[in-house]
């Protein structure tokens, strides 16, 4: 028996998925969730084999919810209309259902999942790539969602001072202290607005709106001083990038 979780903020949308799932006796619905917070909890608790996920939901989107999971399960998206999301799906999702969809189309998506399940039991790779693609969407560039134990924090990018590489994590320094996110520097460099966030150093990305001045530091290097007083290393190539963005 495979475990399934349905995550959608509209009760009727959940009920239609549940109805279609009755045709698949091998799948059992272990939880239904109305938003991403509940979704994270339920996924950690049940460790499902498959989730059916909506994108536009209260507080955090379906994509943001997946980012909070250490090991996201296989996902079939069900959404009404989102041009950008659809592009991301086409490239990387197991399948995506455009609402409204019928039983036949639903069965096909489940079939695809079952096939992948049998072939290579590693759907996370797809999901990761999907998230990378989705993070380039304009709406996702406005904020970063992080998990702090059981608490979920939504950080507006305006509140971010700088990002710092820390082993497998990235430390996000903000007005309220720092948060860790299981991502690469390259991910943030790509997904954040390049007019505001500049990779000033191999291990640092700085919010240029926070910079008050740039001082020379040792030979060839510089250091950016932020409004908060924090100092961010700037390499030679980073200095060139900063000069370009700041129009110096």
């Amino acid at each position, binding site marked *: 028996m495979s475990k399934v979780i349905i995550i959608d903020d509209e009760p009727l949308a959940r*009920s239609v998925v549940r109805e279609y799932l009755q045709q698949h006796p091998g799948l059992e619905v272990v939880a239904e969730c109305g938003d991403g917070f509940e979704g994270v909890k339920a996924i950690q608790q049940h460790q499902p084999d498959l989730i059916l996920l909506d994108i536009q939901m209260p507080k955090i989107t379906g994509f943001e919810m997946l980012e909070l999971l250490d090991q996201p399960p296989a996902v079939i998206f069900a959404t*009404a209309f989102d041009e950008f999301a659809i592009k991301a799906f086409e490239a990387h999702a197991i399948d995506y259902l*455009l609402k409204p969809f019928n039983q036949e189309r639903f069965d096909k998506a489940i079939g695809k999942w079952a096939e992948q399940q049998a072939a290579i039991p590693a759907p996370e790779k797809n999901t990761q790539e999907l998230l990378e693609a989705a993070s380039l969407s304009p709406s996702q560039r406005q904020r970063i969602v992080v998990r702090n134990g059981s608490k979920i924090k939504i950080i507006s990018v305006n509140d971010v001072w700088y990002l710092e590489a820390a082993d497998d994590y990235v430390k996000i320094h903000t007005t309220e202290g720092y948060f860790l996110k299981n991502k690469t520097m390259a991910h943030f460099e790509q997904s954040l607005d390049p007019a505001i966030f500049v990779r000033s150093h191999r291990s640092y990305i700085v919010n240029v709106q926070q910079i008050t001045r740039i001082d020379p530091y040792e030979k060839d290097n510089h250091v950016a001083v932020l409004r908060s007083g924090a100092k961010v290393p700037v390499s030679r190539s980073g200095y060139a990038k900063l000069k370009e963005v700041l129009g110096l």
Partner: protein
Amino acid sequence: MLLHFFGQPWEAAAVDAVLSNTLLLLACLLVMIVLRYYLPRGQQYINVFALCLLLTIAWLLLSKWLLGLLLGQYEGYKLLLHNSLSIRFSLAFLLLGFITMVSILWYSQLEQKEQEERKKDAEKLAREAELFKLRQQLQPHFLFNSLNSINALIGSRPQEARKMVQQLSDFLRGTIKKDEAQWVILKEELEYLQLYLDIEKVRFGNRLATAIDIEEITHNLKLPALLLQPIVENAIKFGLYDTIGETVIEISAAKEENHLVIKVKNPFDPETSSPKQGTGFGLNSVQRRLYLLFARNDLVTTEAKDNIFITIVRIPQA
């Protein structure tokens, strides 16, 4: 020109006057016709000056030749004609110059008027097209999600599915029908809004509640058709997607100093919502519509107070 009584017989003076003046009139007409189809711009005024000069000389030569032919037998006429050439030239040139100037002014003004009218027409067309587009912008999200809800209801509660199909049809019909009549009374707009709210309530179930408080005096006040729906849609989206749990949307209408004032309130979370989200597309289109209708940018305002976001729209009453 009848000043030619310098010892000349009456007939000679008359012939001279009629001929000279007719020819001069023809020259004037020529100038006017030319200027009607060809208005000088910038440097080309020199050409106009040259034209005047040329015409005057041509007129002078022609009239001298003709007069010489006709009145040559009168004694002393030829001498008088010869002596008066410079006066004739000056007078003709002045007259032609004056006519030219008046024509230029007249035709320029005409052209300008025409241009203005054309510009006005073009602007009106553009404005109508834009208004039409703004009215048409129905969120595809709403439509597809509603269809999805109906799809769900067909399986479990067919009677409700039918009802929702009816509501959705009435709502869509309203969108199409109201395009023709740009202005509606508030009561009518609220009936239409209710259709929309009923559909949204089916979609979101218990999460969405509304409180509507409309002063009776406002029932017959006028507003542009389909103006409220995008505002409420914005509030619902903002309220439902920014908070967890039940969302109450409050809608109120009052009359204040010859304005219909409509307030739409929704809850929001100041910690997580960037201010950008609050004035999303929905409100921009409303603002744009009111600007096109009233040429005022201050008719849509927003306030955020104690986790409540308020959108205020003021519609001037004629």
